[in-house]
């Protein structure tokens, strides 16, 4: 598992929900801290796009020829969600894109598959989760939303695989029938009894394969949705406490399928060359990988810094915390909010969406090769010089812009009104009128700097309408800051 990682990207949404807000609503304690929350216009696919963009940003990252996407909360069944991610990342049409969806444990398999496929050529693995549960449940308070992407390649991996082992057993610890809002769990102590011995023996086998002992481990990662088993294992594996990687669930919640990836990214950001990292995940069994970091780690870390990537340790600290619990519930579809007296949005047309794939998913403008004028959306006839069919596509997803004028639209249909509309003028030319997101309506001004983000505008007749929105940037050298 995970040999050959050359880059990674971690996406945590803008919003946090204070656990106290849940507790207060029910007149009970829901614990301290907060959880990360995907906004009303995000899903696992859109978050995967954001993580993937961040992983591709550092210079020298090879273009993936395969994309593997894993989530237990897919936006679609039957249809490949990775195809959406693939299109939004602007990957080659010749790149395969595959989902590994369903159980939380599929995420591990995704990394393992990517690691194997990565020996033949560059690949990307994206893990995303959107944890939810019945209102007031432990899953709701302790879960979190986010995505982590890794690029793996034959050369330049930041870690080598020293040993790995797995174990599987059939027992009813956590389950969910498709369509249900929340998972069910058997009694906590039963799961702990089932998982801990399996993980211990798996850990021992992986270490033996690597020819190492627990004392050789510099960074121990233990993850899983079973908090009690994870806590027990952190002590039971006989790795000194100061080498156990601290989890961030207090600040963002447990990211489920993306949690091991998050911890690994966090660890790689701080690890040094030649260190041993052990990753243990419990889910319907146990998986363990023992890695040794390589000389390439320093370069990857530097490239990330240069690209303005924020370390996980900072990402978990930020986020907007004034989210009201009823608003969260309405975003999750648990609480149905009165819509505006406007027609429901219509589903986008499939043929039109295919014809404009480069625009709708890739956010490609067309630039006139005669006069240089940039058109959003792309057109065949140039506004400036009227040349016909002299256009070249230009990806605008990573081009920043400035708000030329804006409005707060209280009448338009929105899953979370009011809609903030803005006219965006892009650096280097081009204007686009669209929606803003992750924004405080009172903080927008003419001149607000924005970057683009891939979102799900709405869902109609079971069709998710994905497109791009603008969101404020915190500062110029940084993609991931939350403006304060």
């Amino acid at each position, binding site marked *: 598992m995970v040999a050959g990682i050359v880059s990674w990207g971690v996406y945590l949404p803008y919003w946090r929900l204070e656990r106290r807000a849940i507790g207060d609503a029910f007149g009970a304690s829901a614990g301290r801290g907060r959880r990360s929350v995907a906004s009303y216009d995000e899903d696992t696919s859109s978050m995967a796009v954001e993580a993937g963009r961040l992983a591709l940003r550092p210079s020298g990252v090879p273009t993936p020829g395969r994309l593997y996407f894993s989530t237990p909360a897919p936006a679609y069944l039957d249809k490949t969600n990775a195809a959406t991610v693939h299109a939004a990342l602007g990957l080659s049409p010749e790149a395969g894109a595959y989902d590994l969806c369903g159980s939380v444990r599929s995420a591990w398999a995704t990394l393992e598959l990517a690691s194997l496929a990565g020996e033949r050529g560059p690949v990307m693995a994206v893990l995303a989760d959107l944890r939810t549960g019945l209102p007031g449940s432990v899953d709701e308070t302790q879960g979190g939303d986010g995505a982590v992407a890794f690029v793996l390649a034959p050369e330049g991996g930041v870690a080598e695989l020293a040993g790995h082992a797995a174990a599987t057993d059939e027992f009813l610890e956590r389950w969910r029938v498709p369509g249900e809002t929340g998972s069910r769990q058997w009694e906590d102590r039963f799961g702990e009894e089932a998982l801990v011995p399996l993980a211990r023996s798996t850990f021992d086998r992986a270490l033996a394969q690597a020819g190492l002992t627990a004392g050789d481990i510099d960074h121990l990662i233990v993850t899983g949705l079973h908090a009690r088993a994870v806590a027990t294992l952190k002590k039971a594996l006989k790795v000194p406490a100061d080498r156990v990687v601290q989890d961030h669930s207090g600040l963002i919640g447990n990211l489920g399928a993306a949690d091991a990836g998050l911890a690994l990214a966090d660890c790689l950001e701080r690890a040094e060359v030649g260190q041993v990292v052990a990753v243990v995940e419990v889910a319907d069994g146990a998986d363990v990988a023992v890695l040794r970091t390589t000389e390439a780690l320093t370069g990857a870390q530097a490239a990330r810094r240069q690209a303005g990537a924020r370390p996980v340790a900072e990402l978990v600290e930020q986020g907007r915390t004034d989210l009201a619990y009823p608003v969260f519930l309405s975003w999750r579809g648990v609480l149905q909010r009165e819509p505006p007296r406007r027609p429901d949005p219509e589903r986008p047309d499939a043929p039109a969406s295919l014809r404009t794939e480069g625009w709708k998913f890739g956010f490609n403008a067309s630039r006139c090769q005669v006069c240089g004028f940039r058109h959003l959306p792309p057109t065949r006839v140039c506004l400036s010089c009227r040349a016909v069919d002299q256009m070249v596509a230009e990806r605008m997803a990573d081009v920043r812009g400035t708000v030329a004028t804006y*409005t707060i639209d*209280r009448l*338009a249909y929105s899953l979370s009104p009011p809609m903030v509309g803005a006219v965006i003028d892009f650096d280097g030319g081009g*204007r686009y009128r669209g929606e803003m997101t992750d924004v405080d309506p009172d903080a927008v001004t003419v001149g607000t700097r924005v970057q683009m983000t891939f979102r799900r505008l709405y869902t109609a007749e079971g069709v998710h309408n994905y497109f791009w929105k603008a969101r404020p940037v915190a500062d110029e050298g940084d993609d991931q800051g939350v403006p304060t």
Partner: protein
Amino acid sequence: MTSSGIRDRVAIVGMGCTPFGELWDQGTNDLLTDAFVECTGSAGVAADDIDAFWLGTLGAGNSGLTLSRPLKIDYKPVTRVENFCATGSEAFRNACYAVASGAYELVMAIGVEKLKDSGYSGLTGIHKVGDGTNAQLSSPAAFSFLVPAYCHKYGVDPEELGSVLNRIAWKNHRNGAVNPRAQYRKEVSLEKIAASPRVAGQLGVFDCSGVSDGAAAALICRAEDAHRYTDSPLYVKGLSLIAGPAAGVIDPEYDYTSFEEVVRSAEDAYGQAGITDPRSQLAMAEVHDCFTPTELVLMEDLGFAERGTAWKEVMAGTFDRDGELPINPDGGLKSFGHPIGATGLRMLFECWLQLRQQAPPERQITTVTEGGRTLGLTHNLGGGPGECVSFVGVVGTEPSE
């Protein structure tokens, strides 16, 4: 652009206009029938006398059958026309050209819209979904972009501009209050307008035109035949319809303080009509006050005020019913709502009443009775800032020469 126009070659000889409003008890067919009957009655003609028809509607129905079916028109040409909010004016324009071409002697332009049956707030259903990437902004939001841009360009304090917009709403409601055909027939205080809930940006409920049902119609014949039908025809002086390249929404040069399409169509219509100073030559203008900032910007685009000064002119009362140039003396879209296909013809109906001095005394404008001016202007704008169609028409009671 070359447009020689058809100045004084055709004339309006009859008109009809239903009351506009939430007409729960009237359908599209009823509205068309009422406008049709009033219109033919005013000229003393029968349906059989009319050679061809142009029906303007955005969504009340497709094809000429929408008119020929309810009116039982006997195998005549009926053309259904759509051009966003300029739909009614576009039906009129095309009908005029048909007469001017010599193809027909007497034609009707009729427009209708039945908006209230939808059950929704505001206008809906103009845009097709396609690939789903079109911004789903509402109309008030699109026009609210004008407000911060105007303030920024001319250094007007947003609160002060708010007072200007409130006064536009107040003025149009005041005009509508004495017009029995208007949807809203009550004066609204400036305080009430200022306190109305926000809809989009700085725009409140009273900055938006209403939503209503209505129909209006005009009979057009060759100018030389006009006196066969009426002693006081209205001659068509100029007609211009401009569709732009939708530049503003994709060109960073556009600053959201003007409608280029309006500027161009006004230039064109004034050229055809021989107007050089619209502010002093026109007796009145019916302009497309879909939202209060639209009317503000139109005062400059139509040449009624210098750039950057319309807000002062509004406060000075220049455009009041008893002002230097009455704007929307009938109450405008603000008081009438905006049944799209009917609006342009409703505006023309006000010219029909005012220029011919047939408006009731309490609202007859004095630029005609005392000022001796003979020309009126109607204007529509369909779309929004940066991408719209614009119509400007000029009519008058006196033929040239």
